[in-house]
C-alpha cells in the first residue's frame, strides 16, 4: 500500500520472531548498523577538568595580583611591620619546590604505567606522588609556623594577609590533590580502576600538574623576584 509501512501494519503483515521484541517503528536499512552517536571523540570528563583548570587560573590570578599589589603595604597605624619577603628562607623553599616539581614526574609515570596495565607500578607512583605532596605541605606548615613565631601573623598587615591567603590557597589545593591521589590508590588497589579507566588517573594527574605550575609561578613571582 505505502512505501513506509506503519508499525501496526508491519506487525500485521509479518509475524514477529520469538527472539525479537515487536518493532516500535518500521525497520530501515540503517537498523543493520551499529548506532554511533554524534561525538567529538573527546572525553567529557577530561574536557570538564580542562575547563575547571582554565577557571582556576582566574582564582590564582586574583590571589597573585593581589599579593603583588599589597606586598609592600604597611599597617595603617604607621608602624613598620614585618613583610613575608623579609623572612623568606629561599634554600628551604627551593627544596620544597623541587620536591613538588618531581611529584609531577612521578604522577606522569603513574599515568603511563596504568595505560600499559602495570597496576603495581602505578600504585607505587601514586603513593610516591602523594608522599611528595605531603612533604611539600609539611614544609609549608613549617614555614607558616616559623613566620608566625617571628611575628608575622595573618592579621599583622594587609601584606601578610595577602601572602598567607595566596600560599594557603595553594596549600589547600595540594592537600585536596593528596586526598584524591590516596583515594585513587585505594580504588586501583581494590580493582575499581583498571586499565580501561586509565583516563581517571590522567584527569587527577592534570589537577596535580596544575597545582605544580601554579607553584612554579608563585615561587618565581613571590619568592625569587625582589
Amino acid at each position, binding site marked *: 500500500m505505502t512505501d513506509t509501512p506503519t508499525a501496526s501494519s508491519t506487525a500485521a503483515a509479518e509475524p514477529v520472531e520469538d527472539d525479537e521484541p515487536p518493532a516500535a517503528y518500521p525497520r530501515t*536499512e540503517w537498523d543493520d548498523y551499529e548506532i554511533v552517536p554524534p561525538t567529538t571523540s573527546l572525553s567529557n570528563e577530561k574536557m570538564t577538568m580542562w575547563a575547571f583548570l582554565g*577557571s*582556576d587560573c582566574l582564582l590564582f590570578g586574583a590571589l597573585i595580583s593581589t599579593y603583588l599589589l599589597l606586598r*609592600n603595604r604597611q599597617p595603617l597605624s604607621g608602624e613598620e611591620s614585618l613583610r613575608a619577603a623579609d623572612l623568606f628562607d629561599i634554600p628551604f623553599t627551593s627544596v620544597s619546590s623541587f620536591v613538588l616539581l618531581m611529584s609531577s*614526574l612521578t604522577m*606522569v609515570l603513574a599515568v603511563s604505567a596504568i595505560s600499559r596495565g602495570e597496576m603495581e607500578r602505578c600504585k607505587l607512583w601514586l603513593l610516591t606522588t602523594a608522599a611528595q605532596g605531603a612533604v611539600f605541605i609539611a614544609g609549608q606548615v613549617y614555614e607558616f609556623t616559623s613566620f608566625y613565631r617571628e611575628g608575622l601573623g595573618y592579621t599583622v598587615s594587609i601584606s601578610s594577609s595577602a601572602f598567607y591567603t595566596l600560599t594557603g590557597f595553594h596549600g589547600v589545593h595540594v592537600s585536596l590533590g593528596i586526598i584524591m591521589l590516596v583515594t585513587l590508590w585505594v580504588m586501583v588497589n581494590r580493582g575499581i580502576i583498571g586499565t580501561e579507566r586509565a583516563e581517571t588517573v590522567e584527569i587527577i*594527574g592534570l589537577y596535580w600538574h596544575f597545582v605544580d605550575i601554579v607553584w612554579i609561578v608563585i615561587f618565581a613571582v613571590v619568592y625569587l*623576584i625582589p
Partner: protein
Amino acid sequence: MSTATETAPEELHDELDDAHDDHDHGLSDFGYIKVALLLAVLTAAEVLIYFFDDKVGPLEVPMLLILMVVKFEIVVAYFMHLRFDNKLFTWLFVGGLVLAVAVYAAMGTSMVFWTDPAGCDLSPNPSC
C-alpha cells in the same frame, strides 16, 4: 547503494580511531625523566640567579620571568600532555589563562596609575 552504505559505519569508526591516535602519543618514561631533569636544571638556574643577583644586575627579573614561563610551558606541554592532545583542551586552558592575565593586568594597571597620584596604594607607608 547498499554496498556503499554498509561501509559507512566502519569508515566512521576508523576516522574516530585515527582522531584518537592523532593525539594519544606521549613520551616514553625515559622521555619524562629527561623532561624532569631539564625542569630541575631550570629551577637550579632560578635559585642561582636569585643568589647571584649582583652578577646578573638588571637582567635578574627578566631572566627569572623567562625561566618561569619556560618551566610552565614544559609542564603543560609534556606532563599535562597538551602538546599531544586535542587542540580544544589547549583553547580551554589558554583561554582561562589569557583571560586571567588580561583581567589582572588591567586591574594592576588601574591600581597603579589611576588612583592617588602619590601612589598611596603601593608605597610602603601610604598616606591614605
